[in-house]
């Protein structure tokens, strides 16, 4: 059962589309990852779903509520953790949480209880009376995350929540995210760190230049590269002779081929077994091989395959 539905979302600034026809759905209880380089449109997408930005086109709904027409009701059931440390540095952790809790209508004993729960969840209860400005980057990130959890949101939007934190704090944040999911919340997680998305997310959408260019579970996405990996060949002369790709495609275990300039990518369910017949076909076609690389499938390689550039560019 899907809790979030995005249909052909568009957000334009002037004539430039930051989000260009993005569609996806998120199942209840899922951790859904939006992966892409900086400027891919992840933050704009999450801003539309959180009701911060109104889309130029398309529609999105959270738990059946339109983010355009029922923004007020959507705000009551979502929690938003922005990329920035959106806290008041000269106030204590507890003062920050109490303030945000009151904004969600919490008060009295319930507010105290929720603040304690959250501070214990992010393991900063002992530091509750310290000003945020005295915290390390990782601790600030944990309180930043906690401020979005106070009212027990059904849908939590996390925008790059681990930027600039040390590995230990990152582990802390991951543990917290799993606990939140285990308590029944659905999570949308954006990141440009593929290893985070691989580790955390049940379903992943890869974004580039405002579009979703691939979507599926990790397994489904890696399958696009070939389960056994990829053979990357640099050949001369550039380009493939007519019929070469088809010949390679017909070889043992080969699942897909793609050429780009003088590079040839061969996906296979077993690269080691596919390599000898592929090399033989190339030799017979008069192609000279100047370099050869075999690698296991990964989101990074998939991104390169799909866009021709590195994820961190």
């Amino acid at each position: 059962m899907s809790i979030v539905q995005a249909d052909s979302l568009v957000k334009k600034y002037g004539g430039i589309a930051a989000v260009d026809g993005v569609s996806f759905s998120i199942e209840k209880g899922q951790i859904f990852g939006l992966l892409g380089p900086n400027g891919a449109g992840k933050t704009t997408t999450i801003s539309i779903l959180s009701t911060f930005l109104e889309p130029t086109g398309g529609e999105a709904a959270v738990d059946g509520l339109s983010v355009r027409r029922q923004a007020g009701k959507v705000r009551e059931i979502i929690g938003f953790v922005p990329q920035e440390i959106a806290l008041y540095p000269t106030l204590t952790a507890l003062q920050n949480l109490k303030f945000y809790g009151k904004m969600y209508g919490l008060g009295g004993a319930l507010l105290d209880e929720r603040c304690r729960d959250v501070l214990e969840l992010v393991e900063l209860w002992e530091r509750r009376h310290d000003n945020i400005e005295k915290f390390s980057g990782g601790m600030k990130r944990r309180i930043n995350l906690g401020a979005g959890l106070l009212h027990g949101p059904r849908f939590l939007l996390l925008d790059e929540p681990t930027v600039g934190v040390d590995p230990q704090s990152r582990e802390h944040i991951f543990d917290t995210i799993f606990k939140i999911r285990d308590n029944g919340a659905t999570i949308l997680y954006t990141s440009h760190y593929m290893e985070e998305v691989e580790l955390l997310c049940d379903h992943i959408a890869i974004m580039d230049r405002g579009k979703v260019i691939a979507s599926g579970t990790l397994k489904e996405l890696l399958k696009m590269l070939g389960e056994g990996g990829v053979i990357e060949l640099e050949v001369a002369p550039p380009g493939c002779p007519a019929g070469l790709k088809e010949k390679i495609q017909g070889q043992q275990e080969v699942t897909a081929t793609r050429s780009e300039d003088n590079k040839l990518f061969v996906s296979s369910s077993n690269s080691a077994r596919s390599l000898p017949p592929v090399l033989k076909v190339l030799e017979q076609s008069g192609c000279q091989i100047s370099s050869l690389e075999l690698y296991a499938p990964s989101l990074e390689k998939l991104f390169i395959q799909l866009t021709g550039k590195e994820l961190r560019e």
Partner: protein
Amino acid sequence: MPAIKKLWYVTAKDLLIVAKDRGAWMTLLVTPLVVIVVVSFALSPIYKGGSLHATMLVTNHDAGSLGKQLTDALAASPNITIQPASDRESQTLKQSGSSSGLSLVIPKNFSARVQAGERVQLQVYEDPNSTTSAPFLKGMIDGAVNRFSAVEVAAKVAVAEAVEQNRQADASAVASQASAAASAQMQNQPIQTREQPAGGVKTLNTFDIETPGFAVMFLLFGVMIGAEGLLEERDKGTMGRLMVAPVSRASILGGKLFAQFIVSVIQITLLFAVGHFAFSMDTGSSLAGLALMLVATAFTATSFGLLLAALTKTRRQASSIGILAILLMSALGGSWWPLDIVPSFMRKLGHLSMNAWALDGIKGIIIQGQGLADILPQAAVLFAYGSVCFLIGLKMFKVRAA
């Protein structure tokens, strides 16, 4: 009701932040107080509350008694210190590292020539750039010289009369006696002036004049910091986070502005309270009128802060444009000097700034002794001024950074 409650939570949070910020209180209270105290003491001689004191260099080449009498007459004034000087020192107005606004050179044979009825010129050197001590000293010299001239003329008339009536009289002795008698009469000052404050105009304390002007200026600097805070909240994501919480834009902005208004009222009230209790600044006879003016001024300043935040995109822009606007408004609006001394067109131009209206009302109460009813027009203009700034600012302020 939840909207009002949330507005108050935003206000309470901002007040807590300001209360914990020592730097903010330095800017809001300590800096203005230091400036007000320094300026008030420095300018006290200009106003009635203090007296001007100046040093005059005197070079006396006269061997007779009149040169000394003239010097003694000048030295008799409690506001003048006479420093004997050389010709060179008198010409340059400089002596041992110190300087004077004016010097007097009494020529040789001054006594003899005066008594012989000759026209004698005293040489006066004055600093053309001195706008206070030189005219003051020149006035003192003119007064003394006029007295001497009157004495000598009176003496000569007396001598002529005596010689006419008694042809055997010793003219020289008679002249000397007449001169002494006339001089003694002049000491008694047969014609005197009596000074008294004009009806309804009281004697001013410099703090009466300087505290309101600088308090209004620093109030504007306070709201400029508030405007920067508004932009910072937008840029650092806290406002964005609030915008996706179930709380209205009106509650967020209203709460922040209400906090700024409360801080402004506290700031200007404390500045006036310190002026009154520590430096005897008058608060007039209408506390209600003064309170209304302070509230109206704080409201207008707060609205100005919102407008500043709305018209600028970054904190740096708000700071640079804010400083320029505040200094301009303060100069034109009478925060630094009374508008009574500026040309008429500058006075009209000055009333484009909120400072002029605020100071007209506040000074009306504490200097001119006006009441609540008298300052209602100024308060109304301020509320109207603030409302226009508020509405434009509210309309133009973007909660999302561009």
